[in-house]
């Protein structure tokens, strides 16, 4: 009983309090404090997450499952970061210093590994986008043609070339210039789609939140009581 009722009750009270805090200024403090509690609980969840990550990858290495060598990299990187972080108590300097301190482990990990790896991953996108555009943007049907035309206008509209190509248009026809068409696609067509998605997500969040607050949805307790 306590294993189910207490968490459901706690969730309901906190949920209703946070909803009320949005409408009543007097509850601002409660809202702020509960956000801090969330951070503390999330920090504890990191311990569980770290333990789970280690367990999964060590198991993969032990059983020599496909891609087990990558798991070694993951475990070593995790332990390196963990150890460097555990020594970084207070505002220490030297090798235990923060990421911005020259000579610290974190600084080395960031400058020598994280930064170039992330930059490389993002740079590679340019090549894949070009290759994928070449293969995917074919006017196979009406929908694909619309997508193709919109993509070309946006691509040109995001550069000076778009303005240059249609600069000869007379003033009454300037609304047909590529930058204006690009802006129209972004602020009208894209806006309508994006707004519909946001409203849909919003309604979904409200209904799911209500189900959780009212105790109807209980899968977060472990899935057996839903």
């Amino acid at each position, binding site marked *: 009983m306590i294993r189910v009722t207490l968490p459901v009750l706690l969730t309901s009270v906190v949920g209703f309090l946070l909803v009320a805090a*949005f409408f009543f200024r007097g509850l*601002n*403090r409660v*809202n*702020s404090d509960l*956000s*801090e509690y*969330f*951070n503390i609980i*999330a*920090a504890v969840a990191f311990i569980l997450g770290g333990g789970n990550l280690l367990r999964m990858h060590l198991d993969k290495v032990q059983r020599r499952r496909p891609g087990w060598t990558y798991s070694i990299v993951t475990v070593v990187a995790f332990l390196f970061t963990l150890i460097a972080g555990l020594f970084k108590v*207070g*505002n220490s300097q030297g090798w235990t210093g*923060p*990421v*911005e301190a020259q000579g610290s482990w974190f600084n080395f990990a*960031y400058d020598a590994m*994280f*930064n170039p790896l*992330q*930059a490389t*991953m*993002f740079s590679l996108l*340019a*090549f894949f*986008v*070009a*290759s994928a*555009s*070449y*293969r995917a*943007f*074919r*006017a*196979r049907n009406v929908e694909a043609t619309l997508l*193709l035309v919109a*993509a*070309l206008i946006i*691509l*040109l509209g*995001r*550069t*000076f*070339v778009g*303005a240059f190509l249609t600069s000869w248009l007379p003033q009454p026809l300037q609304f047909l210039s590529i*930058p204006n068409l690009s*802006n129209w696609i*972004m*602020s009208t067509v*894209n*806006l309508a789609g*994006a*707004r519909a998605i*946001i409203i849909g997500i919003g309604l979904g969040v409200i209904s799911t939140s209500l189900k959780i607050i009212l105790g109807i949805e209980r899968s977060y307790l472990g899935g057996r009581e839903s």
Partner: protein
Amino acid sequence: MSAFLDRVGRMDRRLIYVAIALAVIIPLVAGLTFPVITTPIVQNIFDKLDSLPEGSRVILTADFGPSTVPENMPMIQAVLRHALHKKLKVYLLTLWATGIPQLDALEQNVLAKDFPDRVAGQDWVNLGYKAGNQGVINSAFSDFPGAFPVDSKGHDVRTLPIMEGVKRIADFNLIVCIASGFPGVKEWIQFGGDPAHVPVAGGVTAVEAPLLYPYYPRQLLGLMGGLQGAAEYEAALVKQYPEYASRSEEAIQRMGPQTVAHLVIIAFIVLGNVAFFTGGEWRRRRT
């Protein structure tokens, strides 16, 4: 001819990779640049910042990591230069763990080089990183010093002159969020700017910009989208304050390679479609 176009339609992707590499490298080496015209959605941010009276408080967030530095860094540098030039009080912070080195880079590249006379803790403050995503904004909404109790050097913020009169987010005049994902502009609008009635301006990567248009112009003052957005802000800054011409044109210079790369991609798309319609694939589909 048909066989040739069929081959074009199935072009080796390595040729595309080489073409893209050359399209980026050659303009970069040659220093190719194009004129940049500031659009209203970016001009709005510039005008708002430019119109703020001296001493106004501006939150400037670096919610991005190293992968998007080429797009986001020119934005935040241009905004910071503009804000310091106007003698506004700047509160630098990040909700991304990977944002700490970006704030450090701002201190070195903008504050130390261009504004060495500005005093830390008085004219600007680096509040560093705080974990908790939108929860931090929620806390700062009613208790800003509580959400950011110490600056990046570990000083108690309550002892800093710049924090005088700062109790909550509503005490600020503008929030400029430069971001590339979650938490980012959307969270600053939803949990900070909108409920506190503080205008929010954003700068995001090109792929994220379309998702933020629903907030513009009522909840989002303006938006810098990708490198083009950054270049537009730089163009507005340099036009108004030509003394920054040599220092704040990173994005304008990078737009050269991006423009050529876009043209190469367009050429490949056109070529692919020509091969599709004149080659065998289209005929096979029709029959």
